[in-house]
């Protein structure tokens, strides 16, 4: 607080140093893109926003990491009783199951947070301020999508890191355990990138088309849930061939497929009837990522600011 000013006793002077020019560096487009990427990543977690904006992303982030923390805790206890090895192998929470374990949480995160980025900029007319700056429209779209995908990647990979550290450090033979787990790292990274890219890309594409938050959230959930149900129904009705291929319209089924292929595992029993070549899953995932980015860029190129 400023000290109260008593009349008649001048306590100081206000110097109007006025407006000053800026002579420093202008880092241009690349800097603007990097900054917007970072801003999107932080905004996805509600950082730099009010307290309420942080609730949903932080709760979901905590839920995503919870299984990893829990299993590490169990392992710690088990180690005391000498049963650590067995539990580590038989635990239902492993590198290859983690993505599907938290997939619902990731979908909810997409539905809750993707509209925060694109929807907010459209709703409040901020786009024309971005587009009037050192950015191109495609830069804007890419930086926003990139930041959101990075946020998802964090959400998916940090628990895996916890799992990895827990398994290694709790093992009596740390080096051996690390060596044992090293082959799992490339599939974890690839699956993480595919998953974050596909779910994040699709969620951002939908939220790019409406300033209304509720519409975007509903659209994202619909896109992630309905195709799987439709494909399941059709497959269940007996036309398993069409049903099989229809599963490629369901993002989570596609990601289950790439996950199984990467970790050399069978698709879980509820999907026993899905029998598609591995390449179909990867091709669909990549097409989905490229397609959603392309559609989003096109959307903003045509946006009348």
């Amino acid at each position, binding site marked *: 607080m400023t000290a109260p000013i008593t009349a008649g006793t001048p306590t100081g002077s206000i110097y109007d140093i006025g407006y000053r020019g800026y002579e420093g560096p202008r880092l241009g487009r690349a800097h*603007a893109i990097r900054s917007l990427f970072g801003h999107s990543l932080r905004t996805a977690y509600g950082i730099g926003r009010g307290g309420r904006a942080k609730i949903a992303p932080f709760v979901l982030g905590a839920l995503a990491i919870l299984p990893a923390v829990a299993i590490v805790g169990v392992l710690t206890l088990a180690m005391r009783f000498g049963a650590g090895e067995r539990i580590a192998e038989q635990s239902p929470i492993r590198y290859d199951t983690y993505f599907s374990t938290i997939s619902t949480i990731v979908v909810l995160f997409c539905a809750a947070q993707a509209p925060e980025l694109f929807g907010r900029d459209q709703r409040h007319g901020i786009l024309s301020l971005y587009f009037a700056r050192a950015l191109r429209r495609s830069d804007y779209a890419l930086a926003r999508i990139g930041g959101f995908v990075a946020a998802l990647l964090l959400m998916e990979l940090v628990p895996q890191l916890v799992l990895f550290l827990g398994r290694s450090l709790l093992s009596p033979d740390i080096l051996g355990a690390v060596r044992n787990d090293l082959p799992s790292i490339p599939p974890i990274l690839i699956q993480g990138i595919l998953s974050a890219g596909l779910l994040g890309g699709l969620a951002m594409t939908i939220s790019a088309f409406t300033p209304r938050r509720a519409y975007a959230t509903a659209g994202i959930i619909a896109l992630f849930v309905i195709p799987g149900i439709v494909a399941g129904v059709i497959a269940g009705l007996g036309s398993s061939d069409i049903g099989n291929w229809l599963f490629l319209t369901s993002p989570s089924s596609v990601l289950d497929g790439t996950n199984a292929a990467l970790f050399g595992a069978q698709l879980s029993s509820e999907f026993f009837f899905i029998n598609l070549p591995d390449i179909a899953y990867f091709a669909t995932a990549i097409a989905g990522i490229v397609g959603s980015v392309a559609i989003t860029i096109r959307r903003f190129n045509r946006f009348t600011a």
Partner: protein
Amino acid sequence: MWTLSSRAGLPLGYPSGVALISLRSLTKQYPGGVTALDGLTVDIERGIVGLVGSNGAGKSTLLKILLGLIDATSGEATVFDMDVRTRGTDIRQFVGYLPEHDCLPPDASATDFVSHLALMSGLPRTAARERTAEVLRHVGLYEERYRAMGGYSTGMKQRVKLAQALVHDPRLLLLDEPTNGLDPAGRDEMLELIHRTGTEFGIATIVASHLLGEIERVCDFLVAIEGGRLLRAAPLGSFTEQTGTLAVEVEEGSAALAARLTAQGLEAIADGRAVLIALTDERPYDIVRDTIVDLGLALVRIEQRRHKLEDLFRDMPIPTGTAAAGVVSTGAGAASTGTGAAAAPVGEEGPQ
């Protein structure tokens, strides 16, 4: 202050003799056949330039084309001698834009928002923060700059909009209706701010407005457009240096007064309750006084008007013949509803 060495990395080196902004047959047609700009050709130099025209005249469209926010249908536009179609990002690094519409997220504070936009203009992080503090102080936002902008008054919002346009120290400011929604005091302050920014800091400024009385208070050059065509581009002085007008307002009988004055050799027309008389010397004052006494009219006021910018939107403000009188005598409303038809004869003067 405007030297090559200290302004390194600027779009400055644009050749002398080339206008700050140069438009050549710029045309914009929106889908659905609306023509917002119709073959606009004009050069705009540094200074505070008023871009005047009624609603729908094409002012906002022109600013957006200069920013590369929308593409022209045909014709050319250059800013700093760079083509707006191909050098958009280079141009925009040095241009500040205050849009007409709302553009502030209600949940962010002015400080956070303006410094974020400074980064988007290419300023390093520390510089962005420092410039934000300076520029918000410059526009007159102090403690409230840390509060969420949703609670700001319209005046404060307009100030933030100006601040974000200034934060990266642009060489050119494009202000679209900067006094929109402000009360008279707020207008005065905003105009004063624009005037200071343009004159003291040497930032070339284009102020688009339909409020002509405001524009003439801050600008030294005027570009008037109507129906997407150029009405006139000239220094403000040449608009106001013209012969003045004497406006005589009477309770009733303005038509009779005009007729009587015309009969005595003055150029006079009735305009609602007022009679406008061309003022070339002192002679009309006495004639008007005597005529009013003769007719027994109730005089409300006699006022010497400079040529108001409204006159731009009229077909020949003080007609010499009776043909034009019909147009003007439709009353004061004619000023704001001036259309392409009224614009055409003046528009042929072309750029100067």
